[in-house]
């Protein structure tokens, strides 16, 4: 045992799920408030975590505040269960809770993800936690936080609309490819995080509870099941999802979100979905 460990004595043990009970309780309260006010950014006291801010500290704090001994956890990063960020976050969760993990979206009760929503159906009653780099959708058009709060309070989203209009004037189309701004319940503008538009389209009237955690920016927000999530668009430039160039070169899916990999063609970004279709696990 290290010298520090000796000095600490009985105090070496961590709480279940790393965070202390008061922190978890506070975060759950904030989460409840977020669920009660869909799309509204609720401030929370983001803790120092054993990973760098900007690497999913908001998502991991939400996950740790919610996970119980009976949960089955899935962690993905850009649709991949095996990427470094996902592996490390999963390791932290299992090491501090001992819960079971899975790659199967249909089996997991708690899914933490970055930049993707699984292509396979999520188990009913499961919670999806998204990592959020920038919770403020208006940051694109307004640097001041005081100003964006006022704009939300007054539902003054003309600057965002103007940004989209200017985009069309300049490029002939809306060029936003990720962090596509959406109106939630017709009242609050929300940043859906850098998920592709393919996934943005899934959020509308979705049966799953989505939670969004921004650790660096100290904000949580939520989409309760069956919430209206409507991307901003114009009648003559409707919101469109990405179109892949070909079906998945591996599993042949033509409905999944696919990305082009040099030398391998178009492949499913959700690796667990792709493997499941091929019967590989």
């Amino acid at each position, binding site marked *: 045992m290290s010298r520090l460990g000796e000095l600490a004595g009985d105090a070496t043990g961590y709480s279940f799920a790393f965070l202390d009970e008061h922190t978890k309780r506070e975060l759950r309260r904030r989460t409840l408030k977020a669920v009660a006010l869909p799309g509204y950014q609720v401030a929370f006291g983001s803790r120092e975590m054993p990973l760098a801010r900007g690497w999913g500290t908001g998502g991991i704090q939400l996950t740790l505040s919610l996970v119980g001994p009976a949960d089955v956890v899935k962690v993905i990063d850009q649709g991949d269960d095996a990427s470094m960020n996902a592996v490390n976050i999963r390791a932290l969760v299992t090491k501090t809770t001992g819960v079971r993990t899975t790659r199967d979206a249909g089996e997991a009760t708690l899914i933490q993800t970055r930049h993707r929503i699984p292509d396979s159906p999520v188990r009913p009653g499961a919670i999806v936690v998204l990592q959020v780099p920038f919770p403020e959708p208006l940051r694109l058009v307004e640097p001041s936080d005081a100003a964006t709060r006022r704009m939300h309070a007054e539902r003054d989203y*003309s600057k965002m609309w*103007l940004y989209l*209009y*200017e985009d069309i*004037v300049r490029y002939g189309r809306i060029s936003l490819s990720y962090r596509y701004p959406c109106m939630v319940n017709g009242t609050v503008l929300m940043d859906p995080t850098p998920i592709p538009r393919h996934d943005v389209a899934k959020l509308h009237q979705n049966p799953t509870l989505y939670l969004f955690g921004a650790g660096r920016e100290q904000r949580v927000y939520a989409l309760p099941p069956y919430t209206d999530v409507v991307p901003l668009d114009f009648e*003559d430039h409707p919101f469109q999802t990405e179109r892949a160039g070909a079906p998945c070169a591996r599993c042949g899916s033509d409905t999944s979100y696919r990305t082009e990999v040099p030398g391998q063609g178009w492949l499913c970004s959700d690796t667990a979905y792709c493997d499941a279709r091929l019967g590989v696990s």
Partner: protein
Amino acid sequence: MTLLAVRGLTKRYGGRVACTDVSFEVYPGEVLGIVGESGSGKSTVLQCIYLETMADNGSITLDGEELTTVDAMRRRWLRSFRMGMVHQDAARGLDLGVSAGGNIAERLLAADWRHAGRIRARGTELLSRVEVAADRVDDLASAYSGGMRQRLQLAKAMANEPPLLLLDEPTSSLDVHVQAAILDLVKELHAQTGVAMVVVSHDLGVIRLLAQRTLVMYRGRVVESGITEQVLEDPQDAYTQLLVASSL
């Protein structure tokens, strides 16, 4: 029936009185001039009406609606639909980093226009009304000359066809021949649309050309008011006499 009624308007900045006990009315389709030297409080009156600053005392009603107590959302609505403003400094009235069409679009978007093509078409139409070439609609406002920026401000102010336009020294920063062109345009817009205007200027020539009735302000107070011709030809107040006598 009055369109705009200002009663006992008072505004202080700290210990300094910007304007005090200012009262007047504007009728639909009328052009009212407010003249006075810099610091006389005339711009403050306009800012209070446009709700850029809140009056300390007094009341302002537009079509019977009290403006001094409205909330922020209503204020934004009033500014989009019931009033338009042309600032002396175009940078205050325009977003120079956005296209000319975009500046007009801001007003149309506030009015829930959600068709980019129609917004652009309406922007082009408004720009042609202020005699800006249609092919300049997508240019950045920062690429516009001083005179064109004033035209663009006019187009933006007129976007939702409000019943009241507020013009704060609309031509003061322009060359003389551009001034004349803008004043012609304002007169023409007035003739075409019948929009009521409040024109603030230190330039008696502008007031004489545009305003049917005129208020003279001095040190925050209205010292004289009446038909423009009468005020300028037969001034009663000592300050107005000085003002008229000293104009070129």
